[in-house]
């Protein structure tokens, strides 16, 4: 068990920098998830912590020791790979005990540790099997077990659930979280799946193009995204982001296409009347209303996705407006493409962003 810290870590391939200075402090026993679209550098970052990739500059510390130039084996970490990376020629027990064997643990002690880990992961009946005789979920658990028996300073997870089917993924997600709580080992977890990120993380790091855009608890990121990228990436369906202008009184925004929405808070001085902004509203922060109710505006529906409990209405502010808007509505609602619905945005859940930089205002 240990803390983990990255200070201004950078990575370049030749002259191209792909990680532009990431700093993170992971506390002892904390579960930190790095989430971002593919190619954002999240896996590279994790591999640098593991020691599988060299860092170009910066400092990585595990348990207070600088590990920049240490071999992976000297870093006291365990990693779970996306494809599990189980040794195909070894039994489950040998796979899990491989690290212990190398560490020179006596056979009896090794077997005991493997047995205990296998018990935690319901793998006892499979200890003598080869990985190819296991299902995807079982293989995934073996990979977890291999990390677990070593009792390392930190766990590193590289998209460990992305090869599983949806149902199993939910199951394993819960199991991983529970397991991490029980053993209390500092964990760094990489995923592109924002649901996984939200549900697992004590703290979340949203990465984009080699930059950590925001580091905070999942709810804080959901409530106060630092910029338009984070706003669009966290939450499903993505937040609606619409061009707008501050009204003359400075207490509301006027959307391109007509409707005016009142703002609850006093605006900062830099956001004066007439300033163009980007307005963010999540699909779940609309309330349906009757025609003409105060603060409501019409949305012309052009497509409906029904999920059961909920439905997502895709619409436009006017029939010719360029930007599409998604509104969450109850699943039973009888919607027809081409007809308008009337909605009232939740005033406390509005987000304003700077149009040029995308930063939160």
């Amino acid at each position, binding site marked *: 068990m240990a803390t983990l810290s990255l200070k201004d870590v950078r990575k370049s391939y030749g002259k191209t920098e792909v990680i532009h200075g990431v700093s993170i402090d992971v506390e002892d026993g904390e579960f930190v998830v790095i989430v971002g679209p593919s190619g954002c550098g999240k896996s590279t970052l994790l591999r640098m912590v*593991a*020691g*599988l990739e060299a860092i170009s500059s910066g400092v990585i510390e595990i348990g207070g020791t600088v590990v920049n130039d240490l*071999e*992976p*084996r000297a870093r006291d*970490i*365990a*990693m779970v*790979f*996306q*494809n599990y*990376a189980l*040794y*195909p*020629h070894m039994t489950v027990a040998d796979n899990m005990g*491989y*690290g212990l064997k*190398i*560490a020179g643990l006596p056979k009896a002690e090794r077997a005991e540790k493997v047995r205990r880990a296998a018990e935690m992961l319901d793998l006892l009946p499979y200890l003598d099997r080869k990985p*190819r005789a296991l299902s995807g979920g079982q293989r995934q658990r073996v990979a977890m077990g*291999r990390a677990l028996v*070593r009792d390392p300073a930190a766990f590193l997870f590289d998209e460990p659930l992305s090869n599983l089917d949806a149902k199993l993924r939910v199951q394993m997600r819960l199991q991983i979280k529970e397991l991490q709580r029980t053993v209390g080992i500092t964990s760094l977890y990489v995923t592109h799946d924002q649901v996984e990120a939200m549900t697992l993380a004590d703290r979340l790091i949203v990465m984009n193009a080699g930059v950590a855009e925001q580091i905070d608890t999942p709810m804080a990121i959901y409530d106060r995204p630092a910029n338009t990228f984070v706003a669009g990436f966290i939450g499903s369906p993505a937040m609606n982001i619409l061009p707008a202008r501050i009204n003359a009184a400075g207490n509301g925004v006027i959307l391109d296409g007509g409707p005016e929405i009142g703002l609850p808070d006093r605006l900062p001085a830099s956001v004066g009347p007439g300033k163009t902004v980007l307005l963010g509203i999540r699909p779940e922060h609309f309330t349906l209303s009757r025609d003409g109710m105060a603060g409501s505006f019409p949305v012309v529906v052009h497509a409906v996705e029904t999920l059961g409990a909920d439905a997502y209405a895709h619409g436009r502010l006017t029939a010719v407006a360029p930007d599409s808007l998604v509104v969450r509505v109850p699943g039973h609602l009888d919607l027809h493409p081409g007809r308008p619905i009337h909605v009232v945005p939740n005033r406390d859940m509005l987000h304003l962003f700077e149009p040029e930089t995308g930063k939160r205002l």
Partner: protein
Amino acid sequence: MNRATFPHRVLPWLLIAPQLLISLVFFYWPAVQALWQSTLREDAFGLKTTFVGLANFRKVLADPAYLNAIQVTVVFSILTAFFSMAVALFLAVQAEKVVRGKGFYRTVLIWPYAVAPAIAGMLWLFMFNPSFGSLAWPLKQMGIDWDPLLNGKQAMGLVIAAASWKQISYNFLFFVAGLQAIPKSLIEAAAIDGAGSRRRFWTIVFPLLAPTSFFLLVVNGVYALFDTFGIIHAVTGGGPGKATETLVYKVYNDGFVNLQLGSSAAQSVILMAIVIGLTAFQFRFIERRVHYG
């Protein structure tokens, strides 16, 4: 499995006919011929042929020269197969580590395979000829009494080196392919599990290469037994004495030089039996231990 079926009865036969024909003409016919000939005795002038039953076999197996050839063959084949595979594996592993110019190294290392056995033999002969060889001279300077024309052990060393060298490229190619087929994440997982590079090689890479190694073992065994004739012929001609006379070389020598066709045929038949037995043994006992991914 989706199997293609032909409605026609003749068409399948027609399609495999060329292959069958080649096998018949170049394999079964000579094999039967050898089998028949091994029971005959030809007189010196080719005027009379007598059926002698198994007399040729009895004579061959009682011949100390033949027993010597068996011993030479065993030593030669095992060492050739071992060195050509070991060196090839070493080179393949090293070539994998190269970051820049990987393709260049691979291409250059594959070239020796294109050299014909007789030419390869000549190259080694010239390099190590005791009187004018460019590499024989430094050996002599180092105080080694280098003379493969008189020293049987040195001659054996020379043909083994030449035969191994010739096959290294081929093995290299397969080992490179085998190494590439091993997922990189396995090596990384082992590195994180605490294994150093040597340990990773012997506990992860080497066992996972087993299918490749097994295949090459069969191929190299056959190569050392049969295809090295050209090299031995060019480098030592089976000498000095009979120090490098392998079974195949003796078949040629007795049959085509000494014109003892019956004996030569009997030796071929024995050789055929040995190879069939060896291959069956390899598949039965070694392949079991091979893990296919």
